[in-house]
């Protein structure tokens, strides 16, 4: 019953209330964050890091970083705020952890899928890269909501195809086909804009 109460409580505790707790330097803020977003953040870390302990440490580091950032920050969207921190910390840990890199994470698999859709130029200037980002975002803005959901889940959150299929309630082959279509579409879009792949 206590777990249910906690879950109900988690649902009713708004992000605004949680941010307020951080501003009051009340340690309940971290507990509230963990109850509401703990599992969610753990999933984000797991897409990048395979090791359970690494993922747990990453989530704890996320709380610590959030505690140190709020205040002075007062994020408008706590969920996105936490997501970015967790994702960045996971990627950093992945880069530093030799053992983790021995097992390719879902992140690497998803990046490899983009090999033939996004150009690579080791001598590209900052301006060229900024232009490329703009083009990718324009392509993203023209997608349907469901396609955008699929694209962000796969190439931002590095969710596995199987997991995306569960979230979308479709089969895995359907997800594979949709992703292939989106990648091909991106390639065509960039080529149309004069970018050589």
């Amino acid at each position: 019953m206590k777990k249910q109460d906690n879950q109900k409580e988690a649902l009713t505790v708004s992000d605004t209330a949680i941010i307020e707790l951080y501003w009051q330097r009340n340690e309940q803020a971290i507990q509230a964050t963990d109850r509401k977003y703990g599992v969610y953040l753990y999933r984000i870390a797991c897409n990048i890091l395979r090791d359970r302990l690494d993922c747990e440490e990453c989530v704890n580091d996320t709380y610590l970083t959030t505690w140190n950032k709020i205040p002075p920050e007062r994020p408008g969207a706590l969920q996105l705020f936490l997501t970015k921190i967790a994702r960045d910390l996971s990627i950093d840990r992945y880069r530093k952890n030799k053992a983790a890199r021995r097992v390719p994470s879902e992140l690497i698999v998803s990046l490899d899928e983009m090999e033939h859709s996004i150009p690579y130029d080791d001598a590209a200037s900052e301006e060229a890269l900024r232009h490329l980002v703009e083009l990718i975002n324009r392509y993203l803005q023209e997608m349907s909501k469901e396609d955008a959901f699929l694209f962000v889940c796969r190439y931002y959150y590095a969710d596995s195809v199987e997991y995306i299929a569960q979230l979308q309630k479709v089969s895995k082959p359907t997800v594979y086909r949709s992703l292939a279509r989106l990648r091909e579409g991106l390639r065509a879009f960039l080529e149309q804009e004069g970018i050589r792949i």
Partner: protein
Amino acid sequence: MNDRQEQHLNLLSQMDEQIVEEVTVERYARVRGLARRKKIRWISILASAACLFLLFSFGLNIFQFLGFFKQVPVYEGMTVSNEFSGAEQADLRMTTVMPMLEFAAGGGQNAEPPKLPHGSKPLEEVVKSTLQVEGSGEPLYYAEPNQDIYITVHIDNPDKFEILSFTLNGEKYSSYMFEEGSDMENLVLKINVGDAQPCEILTYTIDAIKYIDGTEIKDVRMKGDDTVQIGITPDVTVTEETGVQSLSLTVTPTEPHAPSSKDLIEISTVLYDGETLIEKKTIVLADSAVTVTFEGLDEKTVYQYGIVALYRATVRVLAEKTVMTLPFVEFTDVSRDHYSCKFRLQWYGENTGTSLALYQEDTFVQELSVDDTVVDALKVGIPYRLVLTYTDGDTVKTVELEIPIYGYSPVKNGEISKKYSPKLQLFNQTTMDYRVHLGCDITATDDPNVYAVAGRIVEIMTDGSLGKLVAIETSNGDTFYYKSLGSIADGLSVGQSVSFGQVIGTVGSSLAVESADPPHLHLEIKDANGQYVDPAIYMDDSY
């Protein structure tokens, strides 16, 4: 990550923030929905499994009630015991032969039974390992000729079928022949081993166990060992005689015939010192007694002897006992009074004493004659020892006697309130300064009397500063000064002899320099050289 992956990661991390935020919110909601669906699915699976289980159990009970799935009884084995009272049985395996045998005590044994060193193994185990006796078919049970034994047949019979009969060594035993107290899983049969030969091994084999299932007679399934073996033990009496370096055993069979068995190899006497089996001598048990002697043993050493029957595949210890060889010589009849000690030298070997000396701890005191039986001029409270030197063949040996310490108690149940301190200055409550203390202050608890040491009174004084005092000189030249007395006993005079423990006064505060202290005895002792000594070393352990 390679450079390409790093570059692409950098690009994709800069996706449109608004789109990412929208997807994040949607993703979070779908993740929670997915978790809920998974939980519901698991609950359904568990509920279904529980229902199936209940259904299955119910169905099973119904079938069993109707007579389906009954379990055939299974024979699991037999055990043997020498008594059966329905609830408890004395297992023949645990019965030792010791209570059945008679021992005649030899000479020179101590009252306390001697023990082998800690960690010594059981004799049977030592004999088996030393003589390398091992193998299957070891009889687990033993009985005497013409003894009644109880064989219990164990059957796993959860459905409690009625057991009709079984066949043992070809003879059929029906249920009415089972002992009262038997049940359908433990059938107890009483049989007599008969006039079996000592050391013979009897074998009992069971088969054809029948049970009733409805109107049919069926066979119990056989699973356990169908055979038990029972070794018949010979009945013997053993007497031993210990010497300084020898042990003689006389073994007499109770039955007037020689034991024989095709399975028996020999009967032997063995000797064990706690580490190894040092000797084995084969004996032949006939109508009369046979004597065996072990020689070359160590004096005053514990040994264990055994009479063992060696079979082809096992060993049976018929008798065993731990004894101690005699010492070459020992001090006996020791008694002590306050100034002397009486003793006697008991020689078990030849009298080869060369010297007898008295030591006070490690200090030589005096030489005595090996024929002496008393040593005088001992002091109370001092530890002494007598050391006898003798020869055992070419070896010079010694044996010692720790003379009991005879302690002295000048005030019964007294307590030392200030110790003897000839060098370190102690605070004096009366003079309010620090000074050495050449005596021992003893306060009384319930008895204020002061008890004398034996000797002659050399001084009695009542003085304004020294207070009331009695001094006694002992026979070895020590002088005991009893100071600070509250009163002096009537009738004492200088030159008078006093006995040990005679009351000479009471504790008090008459010593001027200690008058502020509670009533006490101030006891000083000077030895024959006039030197102060610590009175506490003369006192008993109560101080």
